[in-house]
């Protein structure tokens, strides 16, 4: 019975507040400087934020797929993709050579102890967000081929 009360209460909260605030967490640049996530999308522009890892095949597929069309996206909407790696020290040294080796043009940041991942409640990667003025306006976890087209439709919708 208690469990039912508990769950009901929980569902009520969820329904009531389905909130959209992008959390404020310190993460790092590739040069080791701290940057607060609040600074990423405060300028009114639309940002795609992708949580990824070097060991996550679907993440790489998604970012590879977007990189093929990224110049077009930027020309058409000015959208910027910020790829935040959740690699920990096991694999973090692979981030820099991989992004260069893959010729990605994204802004890359590091969430080494998964503070942002935790604040976003992301159990798994990839997690793809569209964020505007620190509000999460779209959220999708996982990647299947073609999902980037839906993502871009959402960006187009929001930039009009």
């Amino acid at each position, binding site marked *: 019975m208690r469990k039912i009360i508990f769950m009901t209460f929980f569902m009520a909260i969820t329904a009531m507040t389905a909130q959209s605030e992008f959390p404020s967490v310190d993460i790092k640049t590739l040069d080791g400087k701290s940057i607060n996530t609040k600074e990423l999308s405060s300028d009114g522009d639309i940002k795609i934020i992708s949580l990824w890892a070097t060991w996550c095949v679907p993440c790489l597929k998604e970012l590879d797929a977007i990189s093929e069309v990224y110049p077009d996206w930027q020309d058409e909407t000015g959208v910027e993709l910020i790829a935040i790696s959740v690699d920990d020290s096991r694999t973090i040294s692979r981030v820099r050579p991989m992004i260069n*080796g893959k010729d990605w043009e994204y802004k890359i940041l590091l969430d080494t102890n998964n503070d942002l991942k935790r604040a976003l409640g992301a159990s798994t990667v990839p997690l793809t967000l569209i964020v505007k003025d620190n509000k999460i306006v779209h959220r999708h976890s996982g990647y299947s081929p073609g999902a980037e087209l839906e993502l871009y439709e959402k960006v187009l919708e929001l930039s009009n």
Partner: protein
Amino acid sequence: MKKVSTLLFLLGTFMVSAQEQGYFYGELETNAQYLQDDSGIGFEAPDDKLRANSYLQLNYNYGKITAGLQYEAYLPSALLGYDPMLNGGNKIATYYVNYRDEKFDITAGYFYEQFGSGLILRAWEDRQLGINSALRGIRTKAYITKDLDVTVLYGEQRNGFDLSEGVVQGADANLNLGEVLGFGELNLNLGASFVSRYQTNNNLPDVPNTVNAYGGRMDFSYRNFYGGIEAIAKDNDVIVNEGNIASPQLFDGTAMLVNLGWSQRGMGINATFRRLENFSFYSDRYAEGNIYNQQMINYIPALTKQQDYLLTNIYVYSSQPRLFMSSEAEKRAGEVGSQVDFFYTFDRKTTLGKYGTRIAANFSYWAGIDADFDLEGQVYDPKFIGSGPRYYQDFNIEIKNRWSSLWQTAITYQNVTIDKGAALGGPLGTQGDIKANIAVLDVTRRFTKGKALRAEVQHLWTEQDRKNWAAGVLEYNFNSTFGIYLTDSYNYGSDDKPHYYSVGGSYSKGNTRFSMNYGRQRGGLLCVGGVCRYVPENTGLSASLMVNF
């Protein structure tokens, strides 16, 4: 349970009354399984056939203050492969209050933290691995200038729903020297750490109450070059095996990590070297080497490529930092080795580049520290590198192509040699090796409107252990929210020729993700439908729900 309801109620009231300025966020995750007996793989379901791990995380932010809690339930039992001490538990497992402004970041309650690469301290959570090593206490971070920050912490580590017997204190400082001295293109960061564990010796005079560790690090980047070095020394401590002190002597420990890389557009190369000598560090000395990874103060992962295909995940290495001097068969002092990564994308103007050819290659070699052991006197004389027994060697290469907007392929080849002790358990370096070759072909065909079909064909060749394997995956996505899959790993080279089959699907939309699976899990990382997770071996039905809010 009453406590939970009260807290929820308070939090809810607070949230509603303060809704205009504050905001509320959190997440619910439930992973459940129903296990069944399966003579095909010799699996006997435990008494609790239905098992579930549930996590509810609630946070509330109001200006400079954030408060939160995590409620966890392992009812009626924790998923198979998790620490049995969690079975039947349901409680608020962690809670915190955090104050933060531009100069200070102060947390009371449970917190996560990492100093440097985590070689000296890392408190973290990984639900798939059953790790939550949060510390309960106080942590203060001070941002003294924009180029200098200092962290001081004090706490007891979480151990299931209890706390560790040991107390951990630590301090860490980071200085961006390149900025301070105006080096321009040369970026130079320095760091220093101190971690101390206190645990009463219960009147065993030879056992130290306090064990300290000290470390320093430097990271740099200059144009296309970058690198770093980190070194840690740990004071004398007893060595413990299976909860018992294993030697009358005390031993110190050391760790060193060096990383160097170079990258430019289209190409990157990175090399890592690490040496660990008697370097496990637990908040309870008697927890050393426990199989559930509880009460670990530091983080010493295997530095090998993390693979994610079915058959490339069978022979997986884990780091071997411990010192043993118990017998001729079990004498070792740690590990030393390195790995190299190479990434290359062909220019679009070339023939190979036209088909989007990308190459990733990796080589790693890990061995025991070369040392002379005097078992009688319980001393040893190590070399810095030397030529100790090989524990693991791996060469792998992956070639990805995009033939058209509809067809993509990835080919992976791996040649792996692993010590039997490292792969299957038992003493290291004395049981011989397992040598395996693995090939994987991964093909994706896209259709319109997000429909896509993906197929994998895999084969593993080996003369040792369970001999040859073949495997396949078929995955179909109806759109970006819904997909189904079918997989099978067939160990046809072994005597009983088991099939590890699995069928499942996932639905993911906005804040919600739901997945279901029926079949046999061999264990390891499973990546289907766009998400990777660690699954321990079992047969049965499993379901997982994740909701963010």
